[in-house]
């Protein structure tokens, strides 16, 4: 490497140093500290029993049915909400992309739910599904007590997630749609493609990287679901998710060692999902431009 090349490389590191330091402080340090804590018996109710226990906390988490149930619940919510969000979000993105009349209004109204705080949205939907005062029963003519049964509680949680975050999905997909040259769509029309064939053979393949990134973002987000479940069921009716388990162990029961082990395991789950996406979708962030 030339002298100039070395100097440029040095300058590059200096320029990214502030960002790297900030990242290290707010992400690397907490992760490392949580991992460190997870190797100790460390319960604030019994501070005198603190001691190094190695992988024992992990063993007790992984051998507990609570963890596996929470993992199942979380994956269920994630899969259902992301799948529906993808389809709805794509439809919305196409609508926003194609809208010629009232473009601003359409975009603004589609994005409203995303601007609402999750806790507020969760509460709003909790009220909506309230058996006596909510509008859902009134609208459907039902007497269903939604949040008292497992399947219907899941339905409410998933519906809230979908309502809240579909706009985010739509926004990411819209960015991808905007990158597809209009000439390609026109060429496909001239080549004899119907609307469905244009979507199937031109738009979707070209959207693949964007879809991958959008699904990755939303999946990682959904795996960490907390607010909605906390507000609507507090994990009742067997709807506890991974974040709720971590919260209960760490904050409610003040068991820093065990709770940190749960948090570290959630990190592993998230990392595995991200790795799987990058592998299967061939998503690389540069390529998704």
């Amino acid at each position, binding site marked *: 490497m030339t002298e100039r090349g070395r100097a440029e490389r040095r300058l590059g590191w200096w320029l990214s140093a502030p960002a790297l330091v900030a990242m290290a402080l707010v992400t690397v340090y907490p992760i490392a500290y949580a991992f460190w804590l997870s190797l100790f018996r460390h319960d604030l109710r019994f501070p005198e029993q603190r001691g190094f226990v190695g992988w024992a906390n992990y063993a007790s988490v992984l051998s507990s049915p609570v963890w596996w149930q929470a993992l199942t619940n979380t994956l269920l919510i994630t899969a259902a909400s992301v799948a529906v969000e993808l389809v709805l979000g794509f439809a919305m993105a196409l609508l926003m992309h194609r809208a010629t009349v009232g473009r601003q209004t359409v975009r603004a109204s589609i994005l409203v739910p995303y601007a609402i705080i999750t806790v507020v949205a969760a509460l709003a939907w909790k009220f909506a599904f309230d058996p006596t005062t909510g509008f859902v029963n009134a609208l459907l003519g039902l007497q269903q007590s939604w949040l008292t049964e497992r399947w219907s509680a899941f339905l409410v949680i998933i519906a809230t997630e979908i309502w809240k975050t579909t706009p985010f999905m739509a926004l990411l997909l819209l960015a991808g749609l905007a990158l597809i040259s209009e000439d390609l769509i026109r060429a496909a029309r*001239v*080549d004899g493609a119907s609307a469905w064939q244009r979507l199937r053979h031109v738009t979707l393949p070209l959207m693949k990287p964007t879809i991958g990134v959008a699904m990755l973002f939303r999946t990682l987000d959904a795996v960490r679901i907390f607010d909605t479940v906390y507000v609507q069921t507090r994990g009742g009716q067997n709807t506890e998710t991974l974040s709720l388990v971590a919260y209960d162990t760490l904050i409610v029961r003040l068991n820093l060692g065990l709770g940190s082990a749960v948090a570290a395991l959630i990190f592993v789950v998230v990392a595995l999902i991200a790795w799987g996406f990058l592998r299967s979708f061939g998503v690389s962030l540069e390529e998704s431009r």
Partner: protein
Amino acid sequence: MATIELENVSKGFRGGTPVLDDITLTIEEGEFFILVGPSGCGKSTLLNAIVGLEQLSAGEIRVDGQRVDHLDPKDRDMAMVFQSYALYPHMTVRENIAFPLRLAGLPKAEIASRVAAAAEMLELAAILDQKPARLSGGQRQRVAMGRALVRKPKAFLLDEPLSNLDARLRVQTRSELARLQQRLGATMIYVTHDQTEAMTLGHRVAILNGGRIQQVGAPRELYRNPSNLFVAGFLGSPGMNLIPARIDGAGLVLPIGTIDWKSLPPGFAGRKQAVLVGIRPEHFHRARTDESPPHALRVEARAEWVEWLGAETFVQLGPQVFDLPAGPGGVGELAAGQSSTVTSAAPIVARFDGTEQVAVGSPVRLWVDAEDIYLFDANSGITLSPSPSQRT
């Protein structure tokens, strides 16, 4: 292959000036037809209207007598080559070319043989399995052509297909395209802003400006007998010199000289009117002796600037000799309103053979045959008829 007829085709947006204004044209079977004009003249819109990517506001389009203007592009059986080539980036060259055939539901064997034939014709065989991103501009252009011609469509529509190529490749591809058209006997409609492409490729050329057809004809016809000032100024490089003049008792009076009545067409006798005189650069001849045809405009001027290009020499003639009127109502204003190629600052240019030696600042004696002088109405820009002669 097909005959394409356009009848009173108009396209406009509410409250705006029309993009296409009452266009009537017939494009014959097997014809290489060019739509040419400055940017914004509506030529691409017209092409898109023919293929069906734009809806008409009024008028009819017929292919072999069948109305098609209500049909979707996929039902018009026309192929198009886009300026950007519009190759599908996720497909290989082979898949790109095969795409329209796949959509048409042709059997696999038929698709393979047609793709192979197109690849051979366009020398694409070696790159059939590559993605467009890896191809050069010229290769992409040929793939776009291949995708168009495998379909054996009724007509080919090409929207500035050469404008993204470098100058050398453009000239080469231009002649390849002409040969291809001849070989296929295809009806081709070709949009360009480049007058050289229009002149060299077209069997017939339609010149558009402001959404209206200015003139349709063979390139030679348009060059020799332009119907108005716009056509005269648009074709030719450098463009036709335009000089304000008047017809009166003495004949045609120009700032640079006078032509007597005998040389003017009979219809002008006795008229008095303001005109614009057009003289193509190549029609200035250098007068070495006093010899010149009997009906000629003789000019003495100063060489303001000389450009020697090897085979030819362009000489800018000094305006002070001609004493051209500048300002409102002069040639500048009229020409600027008509065409972007003629501006008020345009000097008078004469073209000589490259062997001619002219020194900057030296006086030059010239003559122009009266036969080669064009007359345009000073207000409307329309060629005054009868024109001095029907030039051939």
